[in-house]
């Protein structure tokens, strides 16, 4: 189950680090939501953020593609490097960043357009294709990657909001995958899904790992244990512990981590 090539390999080189965060602080107005977070997110790895509600894990996730920019009161300081480039540099356009760092949200939020248009939207606005057949291709491969193709291939022109919850979420994953991101952020992607749909999405996450780095926020520790190779535990805005998933769940160093995973806090 725990296929963790990077974590077992002690010699993690600089090139394996996809995102490097140092001293990240987030304030919402007066509230200090995230305190001094240092994390290295590895390429082609699933990293899980766990912690009780309000611990700052979603906040940190949203820093990684600058979705916090849309919150007027949010202030982010510190350094987040994507492939060695500071994503909070003045020259960086968040729109361009978000094409590289895709996101899947907690609640399935397909556009009220056809299934095809949902997936094709990203490639269209980023000008990834030159012809209709290329676009068809991207839509098909994205839907296949999201394990949705077989269910919807005969009704691509039907509206995406007519799908079931689990299908909608996989459609959202297909939409995020279609822009060929390098990192995929998932904010509690299974919280609105039933166990069967959850299992499908988890399987999917494991497959996506071969193409890019996946960061997933989850409330379910079982899920973190099942899908991730690295786990970060957040508590009250602090990054308490960040290690291999196996280590976090079997041999945590911090007593707070231990109490959380054994169900005493949170």
């Amino acid at each position, binding site marked *: 189950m725990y296929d963790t090539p990077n974590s077992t390999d002690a010699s993690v080189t600089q090139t394996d680090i996809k995102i490097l965060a140092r001293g990240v602080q987030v304030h919402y107005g007066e509230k200090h939501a995230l305190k001094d977070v240092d994390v290295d997110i590895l390429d082609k790895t699933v990293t899980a953020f766990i912690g009780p509600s309000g611990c700052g894990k979603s906040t940190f996730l949203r820093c990684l*593609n600058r*979705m916090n920019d*849309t919150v*007027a009161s949010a202030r982010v300081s510190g350094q987040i490097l994507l492939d060695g480039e500071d994503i909070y540099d003045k020259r960086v356009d968040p*729109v*361009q*960043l*978000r*094409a590289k760092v*895709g*996101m*899947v*949200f907690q*609640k399935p*939020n*397909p*556009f*009220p357009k056809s299934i095809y248009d949902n997936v094709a*939207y*990203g490639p269209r*606005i*980023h000008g990834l294709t030159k012809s209709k057949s290329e676009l068809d291709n991207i839509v098909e491969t994205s839907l296949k990657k999201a394990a949705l193709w077989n269910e919807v291939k005969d009704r691509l022109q039907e*509206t995406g*909001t007519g799908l079931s919850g689990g299908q909608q979420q996989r459609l*959202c994953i297909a*939409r*995020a995958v*279609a*822009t060929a991101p390098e990192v995929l952020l998932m904010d509690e992607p299974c919280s609105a899904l039933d166990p069967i749909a959850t299992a499908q999405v988890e399987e999917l996450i494991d497959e996506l790992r071969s193409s890019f780095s996946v960061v997933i926020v989850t409330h379910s520790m079982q899920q973190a244990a099942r899908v991730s190779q690295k786990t970060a535990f957040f508590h009250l805005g602090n990054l308490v512990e960040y290690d291999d998933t196996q280590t976090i769940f079997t041999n945590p160093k911090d007593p707070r981590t231990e109490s959380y995973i054994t169900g005493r806090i949170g």
Partner: protein
Amino acid sequence: MTDISSTPAAVPSKSNGVSGSLLTESPLMKSRNSAEVRFRAFGIAAIVVALLTLAIMLFTIVRDGSSAFFQATLSYPVLVDGAVVDKAGNGDPAEMAKVTTVGYARLLGDSLVRHLAEKGITVEGMMDKEITDMISKDAPARLRNRVLADPSLVGQTIAVDAFVGGRIDGYMKGRVDRDIAGRDSNVTVTQLDMADKMIEAGILRSKFNWSFITGSDASDLRPEAAGMGIAFIGTVYMMFLVLIFCLPIGVAASIYLEEFAVKNWFTDLIEVNISNLAAVPSIVFGILGLAIFINFAGLPSSAPLVGALVITLMTLPTIIIATRSAIRAVPPSIREAALGVGASKMQTVFHHVLPLAMPGILTGTILGLASAAGETGPLLLIGMVAFVTNYPAGPFDGGFLDPASALPVQVYSWASRADPAFIERSSGAIIVLLLFLVIMNVSAILLRRRFERRW
């Protein structure tokens, strides 16, 4: 409790347990239920009162106004005598135009007298002048226009539909009786006797009056000729311009305020001012329009363009408020989804937010326009109440700058005239105005249905 069937005797005592029986209503429940019944009764009463008022209003308007669409009309042959209308005898329209309506009045009068004599319709002691006076003062002008438009009619005997005077029309509609006619200098009892005989002979009939809808206004002495055509065109022109001005400005302002503007004291100030502007009495906008558009900018008064500008100022706050709430109603998850796949702010707004807000925006805009269409106050101040008899030009020939009136103003000006025939026309114009508004509201509903999408 676990096995009721085996211990039936235990049931009554159990159900009267700590919290009382479920089969009897507790005092608190009773008062809660009666409060609910009272509330429902109030609601139903309010709706009944509203519907009743609406029904009474519609009933009175239709009762008073529907007769305005029918007009007592004389139908008889008229000899277009060349000796009168074409003295030069060459059919030159320029020369024929020198003959005034007085000449045509003689044609109409003479022909009527002759026609009655042929049919043997007479009233004792009635002079020819009294017969010719029955014809509307407006009829010669219409005949003149008809002949000038088609000079080949000269010398022919043509069938003419001529209105009778407003009093005789009123007699046919039951507004005037012999008692009143005896005291009225505009009509005589003999004329009413003659009217009865003409009706019997089929010469005088009540006919649907298109010129009430298409014609221009007429002076106090000729209520039978008054029409609302110019007011109708003025209203249509104004609504068209208001739509063109309001929709882009209103939608752009709303999108900017809702999606782009930073929230600070300045945008708060703007917000408060928009709400305040929506509450400003419309007459104030009229004064503003008079001062700015007419006195300062020098635009012509009575022009639909000026009316539209004033109404735009007045309607914009309403449209902005409606549009902003429509934009706000779009779920934030859609914006996040679009931003998440890397859409820019503007792409997010134009690809996703705006299409979803469209039904709300259109409904708000059309309802705003509909209420603006019924606006009278500001138009009075910019001179749209003027007596206009010439049709404005086409929309692309500067018609927006030509003097025109507006339907609600026409209603107002007719209602303020003395002759009851104008009151009837006032109600008739209200019917047309209401139909206009109903059409706008229905189209708002249809557009809403058409654009509505689920998410």
